[in-house]
């Protein structure tokens, strides 16, 4: 074979042969032959166990990544875009066309979420990162790079999705149904509204929101605060959200039930349907003579669930108006 080689190859063989030190030294032979005495053997069982652990961790990591992926896709609304909007039970997706659209806002439920809706995929992502790190430590060679890089990517995603700043601004508010604007106290800039709905009946108030964040913000809804007490100022309870039909921060009135949506840069008008408390002022209340009833005001706090990069979080948003309710006990 060497006879057919060109000069550079022959020269190379000569150079390499000069590096050849000959037989292994005795000390290396001694060290090598002592290895079985000094080093615990892996054994077939050990190898099988290791391969089994790798397989289990690999499957667990794949399942967890699938769960995280589905959760994130849901949070991004991609699955809904593929399947189409999910109809709310009893809801009509036909836009409201009526002389008094507020009379039709009897549908409750759209936009209301359970209190646990803002927890996010923290358990799935955290578990996936732990499993991927274990897998990276178990694997050998370059194969460990894949789980290690995936774990780092997941950690970066979790940090970005949970830490990116988000804020909400309100750019209008106005009465809808069974609600009357109250005169502000002299020197006060507060906007006050009387709930004039009958006890346990619905009222509607509108407000426009604008989200401020470097990343797209998806509004999932508001948390349904089911307070156990109902005789105080929080006798009212938010029951539904309707979307305003106007584009680009104009107000046109309620148009359709809320569905999760990416917040437009120009803002979006919402109509919140609330249920008056058992001690509501009622339709007999005369806003022109409020002194007849002892009242007090309270902020109508919203616990808003938003998601950034598919990771939900709960934000406390205080609107620029306060609700006025009777200061009295009732059964």
């Amino acid at each position, binding site marked *: *074979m060497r006879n057919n080689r*060109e*000069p*550079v*190859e022959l*020269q*190379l*063989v*000569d*150079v*390499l*042969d000069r*590096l*050849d*030190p*000959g*037989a*292994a*030294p005795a*000390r*290396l*032979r001694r*060290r*090598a*032959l002592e*290895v*079985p*005495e000094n*080093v*615990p*053997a*892996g*054994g*077939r*069982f*050990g*190898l099988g166990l290791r391969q089994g652990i790798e397989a289990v961790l690999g499957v667990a990591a794949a399942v967890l990544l699938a769960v995280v992926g589905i959760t994130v896709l849901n949070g991004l609304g991609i699955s809904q875009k593929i399947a189409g909007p999910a109809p709310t039970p009893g809801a009509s997706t036909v836009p409201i066309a009526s002389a008094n659209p507020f009379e039709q806002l009897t549908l409750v439920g759209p936009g209301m979420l359970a209190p646990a809706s803002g927890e996010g995929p923290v358990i799935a992502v955290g578990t996936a990162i732990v499993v991927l790190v274990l897998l990276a430590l178990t694997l050998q060679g370059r194969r460990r790079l894949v789980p290690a890089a995936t774990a780092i990517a997941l950690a970066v995603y979790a940090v970005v999705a949970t830490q990116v700043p988000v804020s909400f601004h309100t750019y209008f508010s106005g009465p809808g149904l069974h609600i009357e604007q109250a005169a502000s106290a002299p020197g006060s800039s507060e906007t006050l509204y009387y709930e004039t709905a009958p006890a346990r009946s619905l009222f509607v108030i509108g407000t426009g929101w604008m989200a401020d964040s470097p990343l797209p913000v998806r509004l999932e809804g508001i948390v349904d605060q089911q307070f156990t007490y109902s005789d105080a100022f929080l006798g009212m309870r938010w029951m539904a959200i309707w979307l305003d039909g106007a584009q680009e921060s104009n107000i046109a009135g309620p148009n359709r039930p809320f569905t999760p949506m990416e917040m437009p840069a120009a803002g979006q008008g919402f109509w919140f349907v609330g249920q008056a408390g058992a001690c509501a002022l009622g339709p007999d209340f005369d806003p022109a003579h409020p002194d007849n009833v002892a009242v007090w005001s309270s902020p109508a706090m919203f616990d808003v669930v938003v998601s950034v990069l598919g990771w939900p979080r709960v934000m406390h948003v205080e609107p620029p108006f306060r609700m006025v309710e009777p200061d009295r006990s009732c059964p």
Partner: protein
Amino acid sequence: MLGSLVREPVVNETARPATMADTRAAAFRRLVDLHLDRSYRLAAVILADSLEAEDAVHDAVVAAWRGFGGLRDPASFEPWFQRILVNACRDRLRARARHRVRDLGRELAEAEHPTEADAADATSARDAVDRALAALGPDERLLVVLRYHADMLVGEIAVAVGIPEGTVKSRLHTAIGRLRAAMEAAER
């Protein structure tokens, strides 16, 4: 008196029946002993350092012993162990490439006051090839040694190193091209 002459039986470690572990260790030692010289020579040429070659071979023996239980066919020990050794040498070459220390003092002194022998060697083709070989990257050097010192075929190299045959061919072609250019430059 007689009783004091009767010796207690002594437990002799070497006399106990051989266990499966003993048999396996003995088989491993026999195989390592058989391939040690060839492995050491290969490692020394790959690394161009006989002392580091000893460490590389020892590391490979330790790794092989840990995985020996999974080796079903003792006849495949040689290519299996060679693959372990080649990987150990490649890791050392890469680590060396990352932490290459240059003796700048010596290089400057040689540049300013070249000895007669150095000057003569610098013109020789062999020296040029030697220097070009030292300048090759870890992977190229590994392939060149396996091909031109161990006389392995391209397919055997591909299996030992764990890369496609086409990659072996192209890297060898590139490496030989560099060595040829260095030799031709020295001859001019």
